[in-house]
């Protein structure tokens, strides 16, 4: 039995090795801890086959789920953040951006594209949470604005997939005004009579909730997603009490009347395509 007793004390794994296992064959669900084959997990739209936990996925995965045969044309692929305020906190903002680009391979927190979905052309903007918490700065605002312009010019429906902690502080006033800019473009989209579907995923909070995420003709969400204006920590500090269970979950938001429906990611493409056909 001495095999199983750790004799050496103080063995520690460096953090960078701990964080994420390399892309392997097996996926362990962070919610129910059960293990499944990564291919099975992917085929299941990155939801757990055991407990239906919806893994936080990025634009790559959503595009492959939604566009027919993963065929799409990306818009404004090269757009990147500037540093209009020469912002420095504990790090310089451009350094932070550069490091994140290196780490994620993404240019900013949103990617926009158009392509066929069930043989109908659609424009999709999808946020990436692992780019500085999916925060909305000038690039996010501008790319969404131009994607809406594309949708208007080409008469396609627009689908926005939000996953964000809110506005990007390092662009201060500029990021605040992206809420206004995106809302202005959505007003134009409305005038053009084109459908706007807003999909809220885990988490969607702050300035994103208080602008484009809540402005859909159809506001829909993934099960269990955290959706709110203020984050749970801020609310807890304000009221000085613990929050009720399930507070700010997609189910809670649906119950209070701010969502049209909750959609399982495995049914997302079918249901959105069906909805768009119904109103065509």
């Amino acid at each position, binding site marked *: 039995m001495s095999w199983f007793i750790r004799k050496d004390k103080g063995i520690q794994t460096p953090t960078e090795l701990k964080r994420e296992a390399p892309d392997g064959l097996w996926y362990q669900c962070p919610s129910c801890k059960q293990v499944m084959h990564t291919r099975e997990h992917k085929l299941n739209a990155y939801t757990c086959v055991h407990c239906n936990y919806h893994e936080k996925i990025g634009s790559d995965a959503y595009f492959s789920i939604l566009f027919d045969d993963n065929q799409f044309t990306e818009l404004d692929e090269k757009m990147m953040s500037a540093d209009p305020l020469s912002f420095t906190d504990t790090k310089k903002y451009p350094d932070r951006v550069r490091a994140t680009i290196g780490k994620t391979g993404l240019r900013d927190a949103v990617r926009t594209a158009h392509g066929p979905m069930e043989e109908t052309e659609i424009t999709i903007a999808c946020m990436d949470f692992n780019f500085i918490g999916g925060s909305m700065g000038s690039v996010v605002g501008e790319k969404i604005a131009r994607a809406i312009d594309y949708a208007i010019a080409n008469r396609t429906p627009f689908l926005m997939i939000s996953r964000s902690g809110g506005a990007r502080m390092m662009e201060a*006033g500029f990021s605040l*005004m992206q*809420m*206004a800019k995106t809302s202005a473009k959505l007003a134009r989209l409305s005038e053009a009579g084109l459908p706007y579907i807003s999909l809220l995923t885990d988490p969607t909070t702050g300035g994103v909730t208080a602008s484009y995420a809540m402005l859909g003709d159809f506001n829909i969400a993934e099960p269990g997603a955290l959706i709110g204006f203020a984050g749970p920590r801020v609310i807890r500090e304000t009221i000085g009490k613990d929050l009720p269970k399930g507070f700010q979950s997609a189910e809670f938001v649906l119950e209070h009347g*701010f969502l049209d429906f909750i959609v399982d990611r495995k049914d997302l493409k079918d249901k959105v395509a069906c909805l768009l056909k119904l109103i065509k």
Partner: protein
Amino acid sequence: MRTYLDFEKPIADLEGRLDEMKRLAETNKVDVSEAVETLEKSIDRLRHELFRNLTRWQRVQLSRHPDRPYTLDYIERMCDQFIELHGDRTVRDDPAMVGGFAEIDGQTIMIIGQQKGRNTKQRQHRNFGMPNPEGYRKALRLMKMAEKFNKPIVTLIDTPGAFPGLEAEERGQGEAIARNLKEMFLLKVPVICIVIGEGASGGALGIAIGDRVLMLENTWYSVISPENCSTILWRSWNYKEQAAEAMKLTATDMTSFKLVDGIVDEPVGGAHYDHAEMANILKRTILDTLTELNALSPEERIDQRIDKFCAMGVVVE
């Protein structure tokens, strides 16, 4: 009793001395008018000097000065008539957001703004100027009504943020603000928005989509308060001055970035120093701006309003 900020201490000292001198002169029946005049002049000089080189954090402090005029103070001083209108027609009336039809120099306007309280009881009643969703919905209801009767809209912004409470979330704080942003872009009547104190984030923006967005000289307008920015980025409350510098949140900054359209001067010593003069300046500004905006057609105004906000943002391609 006047309240002095820490950087106003030298003024407070001199004014204390002036009061003392006047009192002594009174009791001893001595003529000190010459000395009083000299002292008054040096106080004036000192005030000019102090207010010429304010740091960003000092302006943040001034924007929250407890003696600063609030929305209802301006309405009372600028308008000849005011009929306050209450309620969002769904949940309740939100005392943190006030509004109604008013007459200013013979013209009818719809005037709406966040309202703070002067003492503890009032502050609680006004929820420290932090509106709930029904506040934003009331504001939108009044704006739509102004549009119906073809009256211009003036909004006064002064909030530390939309209220981050449990009920606010239940009733859709995010949705309420988002809807205002979208709907305000399509209003057919002129819309003037003026930051008169604090302009914190979405809670401020929710009534700040206008043909002209102006800021009083000693106010701030940004995505988050310096304190909260410090807490998140530096993980401590203590870097608020640095955060204020980094965010470049003053009227001068925001105008130079073209994120707002202009600055409204305050009397030397700040808006709180002379409410009457401040209200006069603001009234003139509103009237001049209305004349400019009335020269445009509703379609021109809407197009320009949308184009202006869509041009905001800096990216690299």
